[in-house]
Protein backbone atom coordinates (compact mmCIF):
# COMPACT_ATOMS: atom_id res chain seq x y z
CA UNK A 1 0.00 0.00 0.00
CA UNK A 2 0.89 3.64 -0.29
CA UNK A 3 1.72 3.88 3.40
CA UNK A 4 4.03 0.89 3.23
CA UNK A 5 5.82 2.38 0.22
CA UNK A 6 6.21 5.75 1.85
CA UNK A 7 7.94 4.16 4.80
CA UNK A 8 9.99 1.77 2.67
CA UNK A 9 12.40 4.40 1.34
CA UNK A 10 13.43 5.92 4.68
CA UNK A 11 13.53 2.43 6.21
CA UNK A 12 15.93 1.28 3.52
CA UNK A 13 18.11 4.36 4.00
CA UNK A 14 18.18 3.79 7.74
CA UNK A 15 19.14 0.13 7.33
CA UNK A 16 21.96 1.06 4.95
CA UNK A 17 23.20 3.74 7.36
CA UNK A 18 23.19 1.33 10.30
CA UNK A 19 24.88 -1.41 8.24
CA UNK A 20 27.57 0.90 6.87
CA UNK A 21 28.21 2.67 10.16
CA UNK A 22 30.82 0.21 11.53
CA UNK A 23 32.85 0.59 8.31
CA UNK A 24 32.94 4.35 8.62
CA UNK A 25 33.06 4.87 12.37
CA UNK A 26 36.40 3.59 13.58
CA UNK A 27 36.96 5.78 16.59
CA UNK A 28 35.39 5.43 20.03
CA UNK A 29 34.16 8.99 19.65
CA UNK A 30 32.19 8.28 16.48
CA UNK A 31 30.90 4.95 17.71
CA UNK A 32 29.64 6.48 20.94
CA UNK A 33 27.99 9.21 18.88
CA UNK A 34 26.20 6.46 16.94
CA UNK A 35 24.91 4.89 20.17
CA UNK A 36 23.72 8.23 21.52
CA UNK A 37 21.90 9.10 18.30
CA UNK A 38 20.07 5.78 18.51
CA UNK A 39 19.12 6.40 22.15
CA UNK A 40 18.03 10.00 21.57
CA UNK A 41 16.02 8.91 18.53
CA UNK A 42 13.92 6.71 20.79
CA UNK A 43 13.13 9.75 22.91
CA UNK A 44 12.42 12.04 19.96
CA UNK A 45 10.11 9.48 18.32
CA UNK A 46 7.96 9.58 21.45
CA UNK A 47 8.16 13.36 21.68
CA UNK A 48 7.34 13.70 18.00
CA UNK A 49 4.19 11.61 18.50
CA UNK A 50 3.21 13.90 21.34
CA UNK A 51 3.98 17.16 19.52
CA UNK A 52 3.03 16.32 15.98
CA UNK A 53 0.04 14.12 16.62
CA UNK A 54 -1.39 15.24 19.95
CA UNK A 55 -0.28 18.88 19.60
CA UNK A 56 1.35 19.03 23.02
CA UNK A 57 4.92 19.91 23.99
CA UNK A 58 6.81 18.34 26.87
CA UNK A 59 9.83 19.77 28.64
CA UNK A 60 10.17 16.68 30.80
CA UNK A 61 11.55 14.07 28.39
CA UNK A 62 15.02 14.33 29.91
CA UNK A 63 13.48 13.54 33.29
CA UNK A 64 11.82 10.40 31.87
CA UNK A 65 15.13 9.40 30.29
CA UNK A 66 16.72 10.02 33.70
CA UNK A 67 14.05 8.04 35.53
CA UNK A 68 14.74 5.08 33.27
CA UNK A 69 18.48 5.44 33.75
CA UNK A 70 18.24 5.78 37.54
CA UNK A 71 15.70 2.96 37.87
CA UNK A 72 18.12 0.69 36.04
CA UNK A 73 21.08 1.95 38.04
CA UNK A 74 19.48 1.69 41.47
CA UNK A 75 17.65 -1.60 40.94
CA UNK A 76 20.56 -3.41 39.30
CA UNK A 77 23.22 -2.22 41.78
CA UNK A 78 21.36 -1.91 45.10
CA UNK A 79 18.65 -4.53 44.61
CA UNK A 80 20.80 -6.85 42.48
CA UNK A 81 17.98 -7.10 40.00
CA UNK A 82 18.73 -8.58 36.58
CA UNK A 83 19.47 -5.59 34.27
CA UNK A 84 16.64 -6.55 31.89
CA UNK A 85 14.18 -6.68 34.79
CA UNK A 86 15.54 -3.36 36.04
CA UNK A 87 14.94 -1.94 32.54
CA UNK A 88 11.35 -3.22 32.52
CA UNK A 89 10.75 -1.95 36.05
CA UNK A 90 12.09 1.42 34.90
CA UNK A 91 9.51 1.55 32.11
CA UNK A 92 6.69 0.68 34.52
CA UNK A 93 7.83 3.30 37.05
CA UNK A 94 8.32 6.00 34.40
CA UNK A 95 4.98 5.32 32.69
CA UNK A 96 3.19 5.43 36.04
CA UNK A 97 4.80 8.76 36.89
CA UNK A 98 3.96 10.10 33.42
CA UNK A 99 0.32 9.09 33.84
CA UNK A 100 0.21 10.88 37.20
CA UNK A 101 1.65 14.06 35.66
CA UNK A 102 -0.33 13.82 32.42
CA UNK A 103 -3.80 12.96 33.65
CA UNK A 104 -4.60 16.20 35.48
CA UNK A 105 -2.74 18.53 33.09
CA UNK A 106 -3.90 17.06 29.78
CA UNK A 107 -7.54 17.53 30.78
CA UNK A 108 -6.95 21.27 30.56
CA UNK A 109 -6.88 23.09 27.25
CA UNK A 110 -3.73 24.90 26.20
CA UNK A 111 -0.09 24.24 26.90
CA UNK A 112 -0.33 23.27 30.54
CA UNK A 113 1.59 20.08 29.86
CA UNK A 114 4.66 22.07 28.83
CA UNK A 115 4.47 24.04 32.08
CA UNK A 116 3.77 20.99 34.22
CA UNK A 117 6.62 19.00 32.68
CA UNK A 118 8.97 21.97 33.07
CA UNK A 119 8.32 21.91 36.80
CA UNK A 120 8.33 18.13 36.88
CA UNK A 121 11.73 17.97 35.18
CA UNK A 122 13.22 20.27 37.79
CA UNK A 123 11.68 18.26 40.64
CA UNK A 124 13.09 15.01 39.25
CA UNK A 125 16.58 16.47 38.95
CA UNK A 126 16.39 17.81 42.50
CA UNK A 127 15.30 14.31 43.58
CA UNK A 128 18.37 12.79 41.88
CA UNK A 129 20.54 15.33 43.74
CA UNK A 130 18.93 15.10 47.16
CA UNK A 131 17.62 11.56 47.65
CA UNK A 132 21.10 10.43 48.58
CA UNK A 133 20.19 7.09 50.21
CA UNK A 134 18.72 6.01 46.87
CA UNK A 135 20.56 8.03 44.22
CA UNK A 136 23.91 8.79 45.91
CA UNK A 137 23.39 12.51 45.14
CA UNK A 138 25.95 14.46 43.11
CA UNK A 139 28.42 11.59 43.07
CA UNK A 140 26.08 9.38 41.12
CA UNK A 141 25.98 5.60 40.84
CA UNK A 142 28.89 3.73 39.27
CA UNK A 143 29.57 0.12 38.27
CA UNK A 144 26.14 -0.47 36.79
CA UNK A 145 26.09 -4.02 35.39
CA UNK A 146 25.79 -4.45 31.63
CA UNK A 147 22.88 -5.97 29.78
CA UNK A 148 23.47 -9.49 28.50
CA UNK A 149 21.71 -12.26 26.61
CA UNK A 150 23.02 -15.69 27.61
CA UNK A 151 26.76 -15.37 27.22
CA UNK A 152 26.58 -12.24 25.08
CA UNK A 153 27.42 -9.22 27.23
CA UNK A 154 26.61 -5.83 25.69
CA UNK A 155 30.03 -4.42 26.31
CA UNK A 156 31.77 -1.94 24.04
CA UNK A 157 30.40 0.60 21.64
CA UNK A 158 29.36 -1.51 18.67
CA UNK A 159 27.23 -4.04 20.56
CA UNK A 160 25.46 -1.17 22.28
CA UNK A 161 25.12 0.53 18.92
CA UNK A 162 23.13 -2.43 17.59
CA UNK A 163 21.13 -2.64 20.82
CA UNK A 164 20.24 1.07 20.69
CA UNK A 165 19.18 0.87 17.06
CA UNK A 166 17.14 -2.27 17.66
CA UNK A 167 15.34 -0.23 20.33
CA UNK A 168 14.89 2.64 17.88
CA UNK A 169 13.46 0.23 15.30
CA UNK A 170 10.98 -1.09 17.86
CA UNK A 171 9.90 2.43 18.85
CA UNK A 172 9.57 3.40 15.18
CA UNK A 173 7.47 0.32 14.41
CA UNK A 174 5.14 0.96 17.34
CA UNK A 175 4.96 4.67 16.53
CA UNK A 176 4.21 4.17 12.83
CA UNK A 177 1.58 1.53 13.60
CA UNK A 178 -0.16 3.84 16.04
CA UNK A 179 -0.06 6.77 13.61
CA UNK A 180 -1.66 4.77 10.83
CA UNK A 181 -4.40 3.28 12.98
CA UNK A 182 -7.78 4.37 14.28
CA UNK A 183 -5.99 5.73 17.34
CA UNK A 184 -3.46 7.74 15.31
CA UNK A 185 -6.22 9.16 13.16
CA UNK A 186 -8.03 10.26 16.30
CA UNK A 187 -4.85 11.94 17.51
CA UNK A 188 -4.32 13.78 14.23
CA UNK A 189 -7.95 14.85 14.34
CA UNK A 190 -7.36 16.32 17.81
CA UNK A 191 -4.47 18.27 16.35
CA UNK A 192 -6.65 19.76 13.59
CA UNK A 193 -9.80 20.47 15.60
CA UNK A 194 -10.21 19.33 19.14
CA UNK A 195 -13.84 20.44 19.21
CA UNK A 196 -14.75 18.41 16.12
CA UNK A 197 -12.73 15.40 17.31
CA UNK A 198 -14.65 15.22 20.57
CA UNK A 199 -17.91 15.74 18.65
CA UNK A 200 -16.94 12.57 16.75
CA UNK A 201 -16.69 10.68 20.03
CA UNK A 202 -12.91 10.88 20.41
CA UNK A 203 -11.93 10.96 24.08
CA UNK A 204 -9.38 13.73 23.61
CA UNK A 205 -7.84 13.69 27.09
CA UNK A 206 -7.49 9.91 27.13
CA UNK A 207 -5.53 9.76 23.86
CA UNK A 208 -3.31 12.64 24.90
CA UNK A 209 -2.46 10.84 28.13
CA UNK A 210 -1.82 7.58 26.27
CA UNK A 211 0.57 9.13 23.78
CA UNK A 212 2.32 11.05 26.56
CA UNK A 213 2.78 7.84 28.56
CA UNK A 214 4.00 5.99 25.46
CA UNK A 215 6.62 8.68 24.84
CA UNK A 216 7.71 8.48 28.48
CA UNK A 217 8.08 4.72 28.09
CA UNK A 218 10.30 5.15 25.01
CA UNK A 219 12.44 7.68 26.91
CA UNK A 220 12.74 5.34 29.88
CA UNK A 221 13.83 2.46 27.67
CA UNK A 222 16.50 4.67 26.11
CA UNK A 223 17.60 5.88 29.54
CA UNK A 224 17.99 2.33 30.82
CA UNK A 225 20.10 1.25 27.84
CA UNK A 226 22.16 4.40 28.37
CA UNK A 227 22.78 3.54 32.04
CA UNK A 228 23.85 -0.03 31.30
CA UNK A 229 26.03 1.22 28.42
CA UNK A 230 27.85 4.06 30.20
CA UNK A 231 27.68 2.07 33.51
CA UNK A 232 27.50 5.33 35.43
CA UNK A 233 24.73 7.86 36.13
CA UNK A 234 24.79 11.26 37.83
CA UNK A 235 22.07 13.94 37.96
CA UNK A 236 23.75 16.44 35.62
CA UNK A 237 22.82 15.13 32.15
CA UNK A 238 19.08 14.81 32.89
CA UNK A 239 18.24 18.49 33.29
CA UNK A 240 16.20 21.08 31.49
CA UNK A 241 18.94 21.74 28.94
CA UNK A 242 18.70 18.17 27.67
CA UNK A 243 14.90 18.44 27.48
CA UNK A 244 15.28 21.60 25.40
CA UNK A 245 17.78 19.85 23.13
CA UNK A 246 15.34 16.99 22.59
CA UNK A 247 12.60 19.48 21.75
CA UNK A 248 14.89 21.21 19.24
CA UNK A 249 15.74 17.83 17.67
CA UNK A 250 12.04 17.18 17.05
CA UNK A 251 11.37 20.64 15.62
CA UNK A 252 14.44 20.52 13.38
CA UNK A 253 13.49 17.05 12.15
CA UNK A 254 9.84 17.96 11.66
CA UNK A 255 7.26 17.31 14.35
CA UNK A 256 4.82 15.52 12.06
CA UNK A 257 7.27 12.87 10.90
CA UNK A 258 8.70 10.06 12.98
CA UNK A 259 11.49 9.69 10.42
CA UNK A 260 12.17 13.39 10.91
CA UNK A 261 12.56 12.70 14.63
CA UNK A 262 15.42 10.31 13.86
CA UNK A 263 16.94 12.76 11.38
CA UNK A 264 16.71 15.62 13.88
CA UNK A 265 18.26 13.50 16.62
CA UNK A 266 21.17 12.55 14.36
CA UNK A 267 21.86 16.07 13.18
CA UNK A 268 21.47 17.86 16.48
CA UNK A 269 23.44 15.27 18.47
CA UNK A 270 26.37 15.57 16.06
CA UNK A 271 26.07 19.36 16.08
CA UNK A 272 25.78 19.44 19.87
CA UNK A 273 29.06 17.57 20.20
CA UNK A 274 30.74 20.11 17.91
CA UNK A 275 29.36 23.00 19.95
CA UNK A 276 30.82 21.44 23.10
CA UNK A 277 34.23 21.40 21.44
CA UNK A 278 34.34 25.07 20.51
CA UNK A 279 35.12 27.02 23.65
CA UNK A 280 33.86 30.30 22.25
CA UNK A 281 30.25 29.16 21.89
CA UNK A 282 30.09 26.37 24.45
CA UNK A 283 28.64 28.65 27.11
CA UNK A 284 26.27 30.12 24.56
CA UNK A 285 24.83 26.77 23.51
CA UNK A 286 21.41 27.72 24.95
CA UNK A 287 21.40 30.70 22.61
CA UNK A 288 22.37 28.52 19.66
CA UNK A 289 19.55 26.05 20.38
CA UNK A 290 17.06 28.84 20.98
CA UNK A 291 17.97 30.56 17.72
CA UNK A 292 17.71 27.31 15.77
CA UNK A 293 14.32 26.60 17.33
CA UNK A 294 13.01 30.02 16.32
CA UNK A 295 14.43 29.87 12.80
CA UNK A 296 12.86 26.48 12.17
CA UNK A 297 9.49 27.40 13.65
CA UNK A 298 9.36 30.53 11.49
CA UNK A 299 10.91 29.42 8.21
CA UNK A 300 10.60 25.63 8.14
CA UNK A 301 7.74 24.58 10.40
CA UNK A 302 7.63 21.08 8.92
CA UNK A 303 11.37 20.68 9.53
CA UNK A 304 13.92 18.71 7.55
CA UNK A 305 11.40 15.94 6.90
CA UNK A 306 9.20 18.48 5.12
CA UNK A 307 12.18 19.64 3.06
CA UNK A 308 13.01 16.06 2.08
CA UNK A 309 9.36 15.37 1.23
CA UNK A 310 9.14 18.44 -1.00
CA UNK A 311 12.46 17.63 -2.64
CA UNK A 312 11.31 14.07 -3.26
CA UNK A 313 8.05 15.34 -4.75
CA UNK A 314 10.03 17.38 -7.31
CA UNK A 315 11.84 14.35 -8.70
CA UNK A 316 10.62 13.35 -12.16
CA UNK A 317 9.49 9.84 -11.13
CA UNK A 318 7.39 10.91 -8.16
CA UNK A 319 3.91 12.23 -8.69
CA UNK A 320 1.80 14.31 -6.35
CA UNK A 321 0.39 12.25 -3.53
CA UNK A 322 -2.89 12.42 -1.70
CA UNK A 323 -2.35 11.28 1.84
CA UNK A 324 -0.36 14.08 3.34
CA UNK A 325 0.75 12.63 6.63
CA UNK A 326 3.83 10.72 7.87
Amino acid at each position, binding site marked *: MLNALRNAVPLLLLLVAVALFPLVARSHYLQQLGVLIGLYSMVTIGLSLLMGYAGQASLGQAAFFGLGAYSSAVLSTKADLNPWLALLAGIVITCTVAALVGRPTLRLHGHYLAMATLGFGIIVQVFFHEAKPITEGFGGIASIPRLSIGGLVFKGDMLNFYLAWAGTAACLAIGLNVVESRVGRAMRAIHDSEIA*ASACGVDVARYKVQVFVLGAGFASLAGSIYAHYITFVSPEPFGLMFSVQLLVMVVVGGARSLWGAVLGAALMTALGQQIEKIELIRDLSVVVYGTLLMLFVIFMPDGLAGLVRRGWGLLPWTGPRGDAHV
Partner: protein
Amino acid sequence: MSDIVLQVEQVTKSFGGVTALDSVSFEVRQGEVLAIIGPNGAGKTTLFNMVSRVFPVSSGRISFRGRDITRAAPHAIARAGIARTFQNLQVFSQMTVLENVLVGCHTTGRAGFWSAALRLPAARTEEAALRKRALEMLAVVGLTDRAHEQAAVLSVGQQRMLELARALAMAPDIVLLDEPAAGLNTRETAALSEMVVRVRNDFGVTVGLIEHDMSLVMGISDRVVVLEYGSKIAEGAPSEVQQNPKVIAAYLGEDEGP
Protein backbone atom coordinates in the same frame (compact mmCIF):
# COMPACT_ATOMS: atom_id res chain seq x y z
CA MET B 1 -42.53 4.99 25.76
CA SER B 2 -42.08 8.56 24.76
CA ASP B 3 -40.93 9.53 21.33
CA ILE B 4 -38.86 12.42 22.63
CA VAL B 5 -35.23 12.09 21.52
CA LEU B 6 -33.75 15.23 22.97
CA GLN B 7 -35.21 17.33 25.74
CA VAL B 8 -33.90 20.75 26.71
CA GLU B 9 -35.33 22.08 29.97
CA GLN B 10 -34.90 25.68 31.12
CA VAL B 11 -31.37 25.92 29.88
CA THR B 12 -29.62 29.16 30.74
CA LYS B 13 -26.14 30.20 29.71
CA SER B 14 -24.34 33.35 30.73
CA PHE B 15 -20.92 34.39 29.54
CA GLY B 16 -19.79 36.79 32.24
CA GLY B 17 -22.65 39.28 32.55
CA VAL B 18 -24.17 38.47 29.17
CA THR B 19 -27.07 36.04 29.12
CA ALA B 20 -26.80 34.16 25.84
CA LEU B 21 -29.64 31.76 26.63
CA ASP B 22 -32.43 32.47 29.07
CA SER B 23 -34.37 29.48 30.36
CA VAL B 24 -34.96 27.87 26.98
CA SER B 25 -37.07 24.70 26.82
CA PHE B 26 -38.07 22.55 23.87
CA GLU B 27 -37.91 18.97 22.70
CA VAL B 28 -36.95 17.14 19.56
CA ARG B 29 -39.19 14.21 18.64
CA GLN B 30 -38.22 10.98 16.96
CA GLY B 31 -37.97 11.25 13.18
CA GLU B 32 -38.71 14.94 12.81
CA VAL B 33 -36.78 17.82 11.29
CA LEU B 34 -36.82 20.55 13.91
CA ALA B 35 -35.57 23.95 12.80
CA ILE B 36 -34.23 26.56 15.18
CA ILE B 37 -34.36 30.05 13.75
CA GLY B 38 -33.83 33.56 15.00
CA PRO B 39 -31.90 36.73 14.24
CA ASN B 40 -28.12 36.82 14.58
CA GLY B 41 -27.03 36.62 18.19
CA ALA B 42 -30.26 34.95 19.30
CA GLY B 43 -28.30 32.10 20.91
CA LYS B 44 -28.90 29.34 18.35
CA THR B 45 -25.32 28.09 18.10
CA THR B 46 -24.91 28.49 21.86
CA LEU B 47 -27.86 26.15 22.24
CA PHE B 48 -26.15 23.47 20.10
CA ASN B 49 -22.94 24.05 22.03
CA MET B 50 -24.85 23.35 25.24
CA VAL B 51 -26.25 20.08 23.88
CA SER B 52 -22.87 18.84 22.60
CA ARG B 53 -21.24 20.21 25.75
CA VAL B 54 -18.71 22.48 24.06
CA PHE B 55 -19.49 24.73 27.03
CA PRO B 56 -21.22 23.72 30.25
CA VAL B 57 -24.72 25.06 30.94
CA SER B 58 -25.12 27.69 33.64
CA SER B 59 -28.37 26.07 34.73
CA GLY B 60 -31.03 23.77 33.36
CA ARG B 61 -31.14 20.19 32.22
CA ILE B 62 -30.59 18.40 28.92
CA SER B 63 -31.62 14.79 28.48
CA PHE B 64 -31.23 12.37 25.62
CA ARG B 65 -33.71 9.50 25.46
CA GLY B 66 -34.58 10.12 29.08
CA ARG B 67 -30.97 10.07 30.24
CA ASP B 68 -29.51 13.20 31.82
CA ILE B 69 -26.54 14.31 29.72
CA THR B 70 -26.18 17.82 31.13
CA ARG B 71 -22.79 17.07 32.63
CA ALA B 72 -21.58 14.29 30.33
CA ALA B 73 -18.25 14.76 28.49
CA PRO B 74 -18.45 15.85 24.82
CA HIS B 75 -17.15 12.52 23.52
CA ALA B 76 -19.63 10.62 25.69
CA ILE B 77 -22.48 12.68 24.23
CA ALA B 78 -21.26 11.84 20.74
CA ARG B 79 -21.04 8.17 21.66
CA ALA B 80 -24.57 8.24 23.04
CA GLY B 81 -25.77 9.11 19.52
CA ILE B 82 -25.72 12.89 19.06
CA ALA B 83 -23.74 14.02 16.00
CA ARG B 84 -23.29 17.58 14.81
CA THR B 85 -21.81 19.84 12.17
CA PHE B 86 -20.35 23.28 12.68
CA GLN B 87 -21.32 26.71 11.41
CA ASN B 88 -17.67 27.78 11.30
CA LEU B 89 -16.45 24.70 9.45
CA GLN B 90 -14.42 22.25 11.51
CA VAL B 91 -13.16 19.71 8.98
CA PHE B 92 -9.81 18.13 9.85
CA SER B 93 -8.06 20.25 7.27
CA GLN B 94 -4.70 18.45 7.23
CA MET B 95 -6.28 15.04 6.78
CA THR B 96 -7.73 13.57 3.62
CA VAL B 97 -11.44 13.60 2.88
CA LEU B 98 -11.62 9.85 3.54
CA GLU B 99 -9.72 10.16 6.80
CA ASN B 100 -12.15 12.84 7.94
CA VAL B 101 -15.02 10.41 7.56
CA LEU B 102 -12.94 7.66 9.18
CA VAL B 103 -12.71 9.82 12.29
CA GLY B 104 -16.51 9.92 12.13
CA CYS B 105 -16.39 6.11 12.20
CA HIS B 106 -14.33 6.31 15.40
CA THR B 107 -17.19 5.31 17.69
CA THR B 108 -18.10 2.30 15.56
CA GLY B 109 -14.56 0.90 15.97
CA ARG B 110 -12.95 -0.53 19.07
CA ALA B 111 -9.25 -1.02 18.27
CA GLY B 112 -7.28 0.42 21.17
CA PHE B 113 -3.77 1.62 21.66
CA TRP B 114 -2.01 -1.71 21.98
CA SER B 115 -3.82 -3.58 19.25
CA ALA B 116 -2.94 -0.62 17.01
CA ALA B 117 0.68 -0.42 18.17
CA LEU B 118 1.23 -4.12 17.56
CA ARG B 119 -0.97 -4.19 14.46
CA LEU B 120 -3.00 -7.15 15.67
CA PRO B 121 -5.17 -8.94 13.08
CA ALA B 122 -8.39 -7.79 14.78
CA ALA B 123 -7.33 -4.16 14.34
CA ARG B 124 -6.60 -4.72 10.65
CA THR B 125 -9.93 -6.41 9.97
CA GLU B 126 -11.73 -3.63 11.75
CA GLU B 127 -9.80 -0.99 9.79
CA ALA B 128 -10.97 -2.53 6.51
CA ALA B 129 -14.59 -2.47 7.70
CA LEU B 130 -14.30 1.18 8.77
CA ARG B 131 -12.86 2.12 5.38
CA LYS B 132 -15.75 0.46 3.59
CA ARG B 133 -18.25 2.33 5.74
CA ALA B 134 -16.46 5.65 5.26
CA LEU B 135 -16.46 5.22 1.48
CA GLU B 136 -20.19 4.49 1.56
CA MET B 137 -20.79 7.73 3.44
CA LEU B 138 -18.69 9.65 0.91
CA ALA B 139 -20.81 8.17 -1.86
CA VAL B 140 -23.96 9.42 -0.12
CA VAL B 141 -22.76 13.04 -0.18
CA GLY B 142 -21.12 12.69 -3.61
CA LEU B 143 -17.50 13.15 -2.59
CA THR B 144 -16.19 9.72 -3.63
CA ASP B 145 -13.86 11.11 -6.29
CA ARG B 146 -12.30 13.52 -3.78
CA ALA B 147 -11.62 10.82 -1.16
CA HIS B 148 -7.83 11.05 -1.24
CA GLU B 149 -7.51 14.81 -1.46
CA GLN B 150 -6.68 16.97 1.51
CA ALA B 151 -9.88 18.26 3.10
CA ALA B 152 -8.62 21.85 3.12
CA VAL B 153 -8.78 22.09 -0.69
CA LEU B 154 -12.54 21.44 -0.83
CA SER B 155 -14.95 24.31 -1.45
CA VAL B 156 -17.14 25.54 1.40
CA GLY B 157 -20.11 23.62 0.04
CA GLN B 158 -18.07 20.43 -0.21
CA GLN B 159 -16.70 20.90 3.29
CA ARG B 160 -20.26 21.19 4.59
CA MET B 161 -21.11 17.93 2.82
CA LEU B 162 -17.97 16.36 4.27
CA GLU B 163 -19.04 17.37 7.78
CA LEU B 164 -22.42 15.81 7.10
CA ALA B 165 -20.80 12.56 5.90
CA ARG B 166 -18.58 12.54 8.98
CA ALA B 167 -21.61 13.02 11.24
CA LEU B 168 -23.60 10.28 9.46
CA ALA B 169 -20.64 7.89 9.77
CA MET B 170 -21.22 7.97 13.52
CA ALA B 171 -24.58 6.23 12.95
CA PRO B 172 -26.23 8.79 15.23
CA ASP B 173 -29.82 8.95 16.51
CA ILE B 174 -29.90 12.68 15.95
CA VAL B 175 -27.75 15.06 13.96
CA LEU B 176 -27.53 18.76 14.74
CA LEU B 177 -26.81 20.83 11.64
CA ASP B 178 -25.53 24.33 12.37
CA GLU B 179 -26.32 26.58 9.40
CA PRO B 180 -25.51 23.97 6.76
CA ALA B 181 -26.54 26.31 3.93
CA ALA B 182 -24.25 29.19 4.94
CA GLY B 183 -21.92 30.00 2.06
CA LEU B 184 -23.74 27.72 -0.38
CA ASN B 185 -25.08 28.85 -3.76
CA THR B 186 -28.67 28.24 -4.83
CA ARG B 187 -27.92 24.95 -6.53
CA GLU B 188 -25.93 23.65 -3.56
CA THR B 189 -28.69 24.77 -1.18
CA ALA B 190 -31.25 22.79 -3.16
CA ALA B 191 -29.00 19.71 -3.02
CA LEU B 192 -28.54 20.22 0.71
CA SER B 193 -32.27 20.43 1.24
CA GLU B 194 -32.74 17.09 -0.51
CA MET B 195 -29.89 15.64 1.52
CA VAL B 196 -31.45 16.65 4.84
CA VAL B 197 -34.68 14.96 3.86
CA ARG B 198 -32.70 11.85 2.87
CA VAL B 199 -30.88 11.82 6.20
CA ARG B 200 -34.25 11.62 7.94
CA ASN B 201 -36.06 9.32 5.50
CA ASP B 202 -33.32 6.91 4.39
CA PHE B 203 -31.11 6.87 7.47
CA GLY B 204 -33.84 7.34 10.04
CA VAL B 205 -31.85 10.08 11.74
CA THR B 206 -33.71 12.83 13.59
CA VAL B 207 -32.54 16.29 12.53
CA GLY B 208 -32.01 19.50 14.49
CA LEU B 209 -31.37 22.35 12.09
CA ILE B 210 -30.18 25.90 12.65
CA GLU B 211 -30.74 27.88 9.49
CA HIS B 212 -31.10 31.40 8.17
CA ASP B 213 -32.38 30.44 4.75
CA MET B 214 -36.15 30.74 5.34
CA SER B 215 -37.24 28.95 2.19
CA LEU B 216 -35.08 25.99 3.19
CA VAL B 217 -36.49 25.99 6.73
CA MET B 218 -40.09 26.32 5.64
CA GLY B 219 -39.67 23.67 2.98
CA ILE B 220 -38.24 20.81 4.99
CA SER B 221 -38.93 21.27 8.69
CA ASP B 222 -41.79 19.70 10.61
CA ARG B 223 -41.62 22.16 13.47
CA VAL B 224 -39.83 25.42 14.13
CA VAL B 225 -38.48 26.96 17.35
CA VAL B 226 -37.81 30.70 17.24
CA LEU B 227 -35.24 32.33 19.49
CA GLU B 228 -34.66 36.02 20.08
CA TYR B 229 -32.16 37.52 22.51
CA GLY B 230 -31.65 34.11 24.10
CA SER B 231 -35.32 33.41 24.76
CA LYS B 232 -37.79 31.22 22.94
CA ILE B 233 -40.49 33.45 21.47
CA ALA B 234 -42.41 30.93 19.39
CA GLU B 235 -42.73 27.25 18.54
CA GLY B 236 -44.91 25.38 16.09
CA ALA B 237 -45.50 24.29 12.54
CA PRO B 238 -43.72 26.43 9.90
CA SER B 239 -46.98 28.01 8.71
CA GLU B 240 -48.02 28.93 12.26
CA VAL B 241 -44.67 30.43 13.11
CA GLN B 242 -44.65 32.52 9.96
CA GLN B 243 -47.92 34.16 11.01
CA ASN B 244 -46.79 34.79 14.59
CA PRO B 245 -46.64 38.57 15.20
CA LYS B 246 -43.74 38.21 17.66
CA VAL B 247 -41.70 36.39 15.02
CA ILE B 248 -42.52 38.95 12.37
CA ALA B 249 -41.50 41.71 14.75
CA ALA B 250 -38.26 39.94 15.62
CA TYR B 251 -37.29 39.64 12.00
CA LEU B 252 -38.50 43.02 10.79
CA GLY B 253 -37.70 45.06 13.89
CA GLU B 254 -40.00 46.30 16.66
CA ASP B 255 -40.54 49.71 15.19
CA GLU B 256 -42.00 48.58 11.90
CA GLY B 257 -45.51 48.07 13.29
CA PRO B 258 -48.31 46.28 11.50
